[in-house]
């Protein structure tokens, strides 16, 4: 019998050995496959099992984490949610992440390998590092001034530090509280429904994801092209331009909102925003020259990231001369984001050098040590330095005695350009009021801020006055906030 007992014993041993072999198959060989199965909630639970890192403005977080005690434990919270929503975006357990919450997700959630103390550490321990922080370039008071200035009207503000490309303010209005989307319950999905069906589109980031016809603010680009190409050599020399101007190859006559544009000098035309002069200048420069200058400023660039993507601003290279004339005054199909127009002002203010804008100053561990700096931001010579000097002069004139006087700041040199963009079928829509500008404190070596403001539902006064009337005061408040630092 002993022999058979041994056989039976061997059989039992075989069964238990088979268990171990199979367990090794599941736990070692197949484990990655099972871990990666989308129905496996462990990754999600781990992701929300620790507080998310914060997004900082200055030294203060504008985000937080709330412990809900639920399986998906930590939810995102926002201080001044609507104010910073175009920068932070939302971090929702249901709807994912957007903007900086999305672009910085690796650091914020703790999954970025740079956060781990040793290479591959997270892979070995199978745990996430504590969430790191994303420090923005924003200027709190500039951001607040812009938001306050828009006061709930549809529009956007973008402000840049010209010498560096740091984005100082990025506001879109009307806004929403991203905290309403943080969790995973019924309230979150109803908030999502409501926000998505709101005709005011509060979740649209108008500063970087919406393009507008730039109107007369585009004349800065046209003037730069004309000066750089030598079409205009003296700011005060008459430009030999008719009023009204017949668009080449058509019978359409282009007129002006203001008088005194006939054969005006570039200085006068810029100051009073003469459509006829700039349309003709654009045609004189020609398509290659205009397209080249617009693209040097950043138009037609589909790859701008700050670090989240920016909608491309467009200047159509396939236009006839009549279309070119209209494009040169920011009409036809020329479109720009507020950020793009802030870049235009910044390039002028910075002596013709354009610094790519960026929003993240650095990322840090939760303890505050820097993980990564802002990185290399390319710089581009947009125009001759002499052109920039003369453009600055023109823009300063606009604020001193032209259409942009409401942007003036005592004790500072301010340059600007107003714009009113008509849109809608037969220009029936309420025009968009634009203002682009830069400011330099008296004792400063170079301009410290460049701003672009667009107000969609500007007061019904058509004409240049609305750009100067509605948008310029907002730009002034933003610039003042930066200079006061």
């Amino acid at each position, binding site marked *: 019998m002993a022999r058979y*007992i041994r056989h039976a014993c061997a059989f039992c041993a075989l069964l238990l050995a088979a268990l171990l072999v199979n367990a090794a198959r599941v736990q070692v060989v197949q484990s990655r496959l099972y871990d990666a199965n989308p*129905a496996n909630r462990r990754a999600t639970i781990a992701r929300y099992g620790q507080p998310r890192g914060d997004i900082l403005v200055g030294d203060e977080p504008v985000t937080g984490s709330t412990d809900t005690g639920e399986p998906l434990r930590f939810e995102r919270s926002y201080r001044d949610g609507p104010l910073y929503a175009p920068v932070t975006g939302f971090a929702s357990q249901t709807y994912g992440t957007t903007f900086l919450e999305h672009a910085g997700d690796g650091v914020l959630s703790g999954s970025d390998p740079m956060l781990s103390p040793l290479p591959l550490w997270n892979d070995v321990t199978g745990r996430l590092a504590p969430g790191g922080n994303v420090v923005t370039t924003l200027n709190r008071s500039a951001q607040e001034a812009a938001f306050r200035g828009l006061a709930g009207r549809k529009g956007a503000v973008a402000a840049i530090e010209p010498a560096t490309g740091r984005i100082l303010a990025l506001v879109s209005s009307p806004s929403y509280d991203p905290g309403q989307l943080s969790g995973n319950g019924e309230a979150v999905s109803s908030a999502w429904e409501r926000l998505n069906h709101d005709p005011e589109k509060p979740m649209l980031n108008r500063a970087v994801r919406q393009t507008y016809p730039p109107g007369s603010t585009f004349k800065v680009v046209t003037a730069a092209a004309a000066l750089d190409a030598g079409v205009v050599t003296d700011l005060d020399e008459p430009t030999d331009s008719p009023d009204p101007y017949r668009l080449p190859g058509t019978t359409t006559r282009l007129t002006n909102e203001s008088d005194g544009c006939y054969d005006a000098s570039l200085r006068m035309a810029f100051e009073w925003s003469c459509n006829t002069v700039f349309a003709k200048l654009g045609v004189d420069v020609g398509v290659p020259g205009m397209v080249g200058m617009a693209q040097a400023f950043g138009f037609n660039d589909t790859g701008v990231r700050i670090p989240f993507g920016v909608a491309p601003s467009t200047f159509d290279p396939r236009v006839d001369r009549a279309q070119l004339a209209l494009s040169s005054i920011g009409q036809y199909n020329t479109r720009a984001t507020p950020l793009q127009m802030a870049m235009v002002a910044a390039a002028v203010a910075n002596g013709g050098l354009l610094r790519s804008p960026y929003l993240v100053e650095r990322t840090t561990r939760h303890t505050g040590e820097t993980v990564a700096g802002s990185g290399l931001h390319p710089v581009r010579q947009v125009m001759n330095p002499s052109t920039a000097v003369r453009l600055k002069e023109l823009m300063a004139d606009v604020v001193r005695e032209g259409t942009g006087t409401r942007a003036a700041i005592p004790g500072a040199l301010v340059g600007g350009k107003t714009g009113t963009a008509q849109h809608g079928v037969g220009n029936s829509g309420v025009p968009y009021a634009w203002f682009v500008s830069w400011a330099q404190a008296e004792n400063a070596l170079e301009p410290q801020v460049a701003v672009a403001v667009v107000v969609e539902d500007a007061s019904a006064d058509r004409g240049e006055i609305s750009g100067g009337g509605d948008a310029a005061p907002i730009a002034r408040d933003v610039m003042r906030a930066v200079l006061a630092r």
Partner: protein
Amino acid sequence: MTKAGTTVAAAQAPAAVVRLPRRRGIELTLIVLAVLLSVYGYCAVGIARTGTVPPGAAGYGAGLGVLALWAHLAVRLRAPYADPLLLPIGVLLNGLGLVLIYRLDLETPNNRAAPAQLVWSTLGVALFIVVVLLLRDHRVLQRYAYVCVAAALVLLAVPILFPAVNGARIWIRVAGFSIQPGEFAKVLLAVFFAAYLAANRNALAYTGRRLWRLQFPTWRVLGPIVTIWLLSVGVLVLERDLGTSLLFFGLFVVLLYVATGRTGWILVGLSLAVLGAVAVGRLEPHVNQRIEDWLHPFATIDAGRGPNQLAQSLFSFAAGGVLGTGLGRGHSVLIGFAVKSDFILATAGEELGLAGLAAIVLLYALLVERGYRAGLALREPFGRLLAVGLASLLALQVFVIAGGVTGLIPLTGMAMPFLAQGGSSVVTNWAIVALLIQVSDSARSQYDGREAP
């Protein structure tokens, strides 16, 4: 039982009874280690979850320690030659089970199972002590073979009168406690099989007609035991307790093989098992579903209904990897309602990893091997078959449930011995260990040094 040569040798030199060392000190040391290891696990859960040692740690350790100590004293008193590994393994597995259930209780604060499990463990150890103290000689059981089988059949049949729970009629509910009589029945049935086969094994092996290479015994000998087996399996099929019916079948085949030494029985058994499995798998929707789940564990995910229990269990094991997430740091609670009972091993797999799982399987293997070893050392057939039967029960049960939750074989609801939540199971397993202790005591106290222990 004995080969001719041995008989001759025994006749030439009168059996000099050599008693093996008692080794009770080793048993005590191992028990202390088992208790300490369990308390360590309990503390590890608390530290992982709250950062502090749980307040009940001392009480938990004291409770487990006192239980183990009483059991040890009973062994010292009545079974001083017993194998010193059996009791510590039981204590360690039971302690680990309590830790795992306590750990899962943290995820389900409204449905705590650890306190009840502690009560049942106490009852189990009490039964262990009673068996060790009162059952002076395991051979007494031989006399009660038919009482045992009658009791087993009654126990198996009773749940039919009670409503089904989760698709199986295997529970009876009395005063808030639910008891699974099938668990007790398996020990009684093992006693009966061992007694009957011990008495009739020569007739089974050497009488009857020979068909091809198989020696078929007469129906007079084979009839009663086949009838009993068919009855119990039939009842279990009615109750949809497929795990237990598989267990009884395996027990029957193993004991028949060991008693008669006929390989043919294994072939017959396997063919019958395959036939039965195919038939039941085709005809019974409950079983059919289990087989479908086994073949395609992620089918419910693809169908958009989310992962089923088996898929969740596989996710758990995979998440554990080699070293595990650490006690208290896994998410096996996603498995759902059976996580503390049928799927308790998934928690071990996730939080202790393949390393911990291997350790647990090796503990069972050691328990089984020690059972077999006691059987080998004995010289009378009933004790041998009883030890082999009980050890095989453990091995088969571990294989069926662990194989089920790791996707090796179709899932059948069963309790992991000592680890899983379930009073009947804990009590039964302590009874099994008590019987093995008695058998090994007999074996080791009359060791004659001729047959390998």
